[in-house]
């Protein structure tokens, strides 16, 4: 469902070339739930943006749902749900329902299907109380639930989330995690998320990918990740070792 083959993205900064991502190869099959870890600046967001078609890779190839994201961006958008934890994709000044109505038209979801999905999402994400509130007045937790609903209204095959739990309280986090697990299990939606919250990884991801310095540093199950550092009991310690090992 997601294929990166020696994908790279570099940026020219003044006269230097910075390789945000280099030679990254990764395959995610349909129905998987993959968590992506890595220190700040490792290239996680750049990778996500290449998958959405926001950034054009400077080397290698990227395919999502069989399409080249940067060339077939709008065609891919219909099959892809995207959530940015740091930034809403909703229309800031419009009430949540108006954003949803726009999304219905943009993604050409028929009215009956839309109503059924919205009702379901309103219930599972508990949106009822603030559907008519402009997005700018929502709390972070409410906004994130709104963003999740918006990303799923067109029932995408792939859901990509960049730090979906950032800044949320424990209860909100638990709610979002529970919801994502259900989306993956019940609809078979392929999920790829990046996070700094190891709780997300422990509770959700059967497969963990670690990116460091723009390269793939680890790819395997949570058990395999723990096994890379025998004697370490907590995931925090294991990840800390991997992060610091990468910088030396």
């Amino acid at each position, binding site marked *: 469902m997601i294929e990166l083959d020696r994908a790279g993205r570099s940026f020219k900064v003044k006269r230097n070339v910075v390789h945000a991502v280099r030679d990254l190869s990764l395959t995610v099959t349909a129905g998987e739930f993959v968590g992506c870890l890595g220190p700040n600046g490792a290239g996680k*967001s750049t990778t996500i943006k290449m998958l959405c078609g926001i950034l054009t890779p400077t080397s290698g190839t990227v395919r999502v749902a069989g399409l080249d994201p*940067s060339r077939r961006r709008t065609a891919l*958008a219909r099959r892809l749900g*995207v959530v940015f934890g740091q*930034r809403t994709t909703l229309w800031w*000044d419009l009430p949540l329902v108006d954003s949803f109505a*726009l999304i219905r038209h943009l993604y050409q979801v028929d009215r009956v299907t839309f109503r059924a999905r919205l009702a379901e999402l309103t219930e599972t994400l508990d949106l009822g109380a603030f559907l008519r509130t402009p997005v700018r007045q929502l709390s972070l937790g409410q906004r994130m639930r709104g963003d999740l609903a918006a990303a799923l209204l067109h029932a995408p095959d792939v859901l990509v989330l*960049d730090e979906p739990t950032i800044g949320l309280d424990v209860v909100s986090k638990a709610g979002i995690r529970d919801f994502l697990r259900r989306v993956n299990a019940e609809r078979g939606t392929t999920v790829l998320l990046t996070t700094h919250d190891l709780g997300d990884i422990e509770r959700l991801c059967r497969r963990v990918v670690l990116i460091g310095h723009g390269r793939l540093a680890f790819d395997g199950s949570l058990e395999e990740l723990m096994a890379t550092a025998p004697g370490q009991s907590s995931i925090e310690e294991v990840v800390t070792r991997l992060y610091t090992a990468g910088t030396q």
Partner: protein
Amino acid sequence: MVRTYFLLAWTWTRAAAAYPASFALMVLLGFVAAALDVAVVLIIFANTTALAGFSREEVLFLYGAAGLSFTLCDTFVSNIDRVSQHIKAGTLDTFLIRPAGAWVQLTTDRFNPTRAGRVLQAAVVLGYAIAALGIGWERGWMIPVMVATGVVIFAALWTLAGAVQFVLTDAPEVTSAFTYGSNQLTQYPLAVYARDLVKGVTYVLPLAFVNWQPGLYVLDRDDPFGTPGAMRFLGPAAALVLALLAALAWRQGIRHYRSTGS
């Protein structure tokens, strides 16, 4: 694309209409502000009977035709100016994840229907000039063609200006000089300008085709600069070439978008 455009524009119109008094006031203010431009033309003609050989009504005709094209673009396309803010803030990301072209989404971004006041003002001036000059259908058929040509030329200029923002993120003002400056330039008969400038806006940046060349045909006048009569009809072709260039530049701009950290 047309459907998406009107859908997005309508959503913002509804949001603006939620405050009807403010909406009406903004339309009125736009009308009055634009009318001040006409006042300048009238003041000039209070002191003279002809400007570079053109009568007051002829100048108002050229002014109205360019003004109508420009204000239509100002209403429907100029929001693309905001692309530089979206590039700097990285908020362009959110436009790129939707199954619609970035151009359509940006031109409708916070679509402002109150600019209709200026469109109305330009249409009134053009209507008055056509009536006062007694222009008939035998040459008047060119008027809708020239307004449409002008819309395409200004829209292409705005799109080019937007595409340039992907490279020169810090220069929205430089490109405004081209868009708003072009409007200022076309408000008067090109005969008032220096020959080299007129050559430039004929053969390089085809502003002469917004209202000057086709306008000469409508007014049944020879070009004071002596261009051949066939030039009067080249507007649509010039507009098309510029539009294609703008579309290519825009595509390249999007592909070179760098986003921001995180």
